[in-house]
């Protein structure tokens, strides 16, 4: 049994005095798709930001590919093989599609990774808008662009923060397919989602976060059928 690609152990983190993560532990197996779900405000984004290095955890440890990345800053974490697609995509609004992807390529400095043209080949609709500014793209296109930008780093692990937020249903479907396809190509994915059906559709294993702690974990299949868990932690609660 090989070690998980990414491992969080009792991670505590927050902003200033507010400690949002109260000791989060989770593993992401190599080659899998894992989802982290929970209502908003529970610390899902904080978890990703801690992994990436935008926040430094105040306790616990984060291991990636055998290395301790707990205190690494963002630049170093990305270069170690993690791609990050943040909440709200955050593409560079006044750079063109091509330039956006190129930014990812520069940051990664990865000679084996896909080139800008490779990424454009992957995403037809982006190729059509190659020289348009990021700001004029639709939500779905921006999402694709953000993913493409991260892919140039040839990441072993891809972190996605609420990739389907604000997107129309058919675009959501496209994102789901994209995630599965990337996984098939060998990329491990950790996706944070508030959209439960999407999370359960793409992932094999799911962690449920509530108030800064993991309150439940299991295979997607298990959770899908567990009404109690769904209502209690993700819905509007159970009337006891």
């Amino acid at each position, binding site marked *: 049994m090989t070690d998980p690609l990414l491992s969080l152990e009792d991670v505590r983190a927050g902003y200033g005095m507010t400690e949002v993560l109260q000791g989060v532990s989770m593993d992401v197996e190599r080659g899998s798709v894992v989802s982290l779900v929970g209502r908003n405000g529970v610390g899902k984004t904080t978890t990703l930001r801690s992994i990436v290095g935008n926040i430094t955890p105040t306790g616990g440890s984060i291991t990636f590919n055998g290395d301790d990345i707990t205190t690494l800053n963002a630049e170093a974490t990305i270069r170690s093989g993690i791609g990050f697609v943040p909440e709200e995509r955050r593409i560079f609004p006044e750079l063109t599609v091509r330039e956006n992807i190129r930014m990812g390529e520069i940051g990664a400095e990865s000679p084996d990774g896909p080139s800008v043209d490779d990424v454009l080949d992957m995403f037809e609709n982006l190729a059509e808008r190659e020289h348009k500014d990021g700001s004029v793209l639709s939500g779905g296109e921006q999402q694709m662009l953000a993913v493409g930008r991260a892919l140039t780093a040839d990441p072993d692990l891809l972190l996605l923060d609420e990739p389907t937020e604000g997107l129309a249903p058919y675009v959501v479907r496209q994102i789901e397919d994209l995630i599965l396809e990337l996984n098939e190509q060998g990329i491990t994915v950790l996706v944070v989602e508030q959209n439960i059906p999407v999370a359960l559709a793409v992932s094999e294993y799911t962690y449920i976060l509530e108030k800064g*702690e993991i309150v439940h974990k299991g295979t997607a299949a298990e959770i899908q059928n567990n009404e109690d868990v769904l209502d209690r932690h993700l819905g509007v609660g159970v*009337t006891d």
Partner: protein
Amino acid sequence: MTETVLETDGLTKRFGKLTAVDDVSLSVADGEFRSVIGPNGAGKTTTFNLITGALSPSAGVVRFKGEDITDVAPHERVGRGLGRSFQITNVFGGLTVRENVRLAAQSVHSDDINPGEALFRDKNGFDEIAEQTGTVLEQIGLQDRADEHAEALAYGDQRRLELGLVLATDPDLVMLDEPTAGMSSEETQATMNLIDEVLSDRSLMLIEHDIDLVMRVSDRITVLTRGEELASGTPDEIANNEDVRDAYLGGVRE
């Protein structure tokens, strides 16, 4: 027959093409504990800001204690009894605990202070204000730490201070903005106990993500989704509402 302390009528807010709040009409009774919940992007914060006056509506009306306050400035709303609590980072860190509370108490007495006094009289020389400050300090349990600087307080005490600031303005309705964000379950419990202790005799409007909490403490709950009001009712009613469940768990969506 209970009075309505807060009422919104067709409240709408547009940001360019995006309609963040769409025709929300709700009404909070005097003494009620109302929570507003909803999945991400529901428009809760925008609605909150429209009521406190931090934003102006594109359409619609806000009525407080029967009076139209739609065009009233935020600081004036406070003066009329519409209090707002922040997350803890907003106490006056460099000032002492006592001074924090005194400032809040002073603001509701502003009318009693003439310009000459405002400029020259020792701020601690106003009996009524001092008395109110003392009372509030006791109520929030910080009388022993009154002379410490606010930023030196422990997290939980800063929370108390924050509520003290609200309390000192003597509000009829208190708007609470995600007061337990980033807190553990224990801290959440402690906070809610404190709110109960200190603000129970006033009307409360809470925005929260913590559903358990909301179910436990609210008299009524309003669920917003995509800027619209999806449902309003008692905790039981909301918990058993299929539409609400779908909004949170997915399933049938437009």
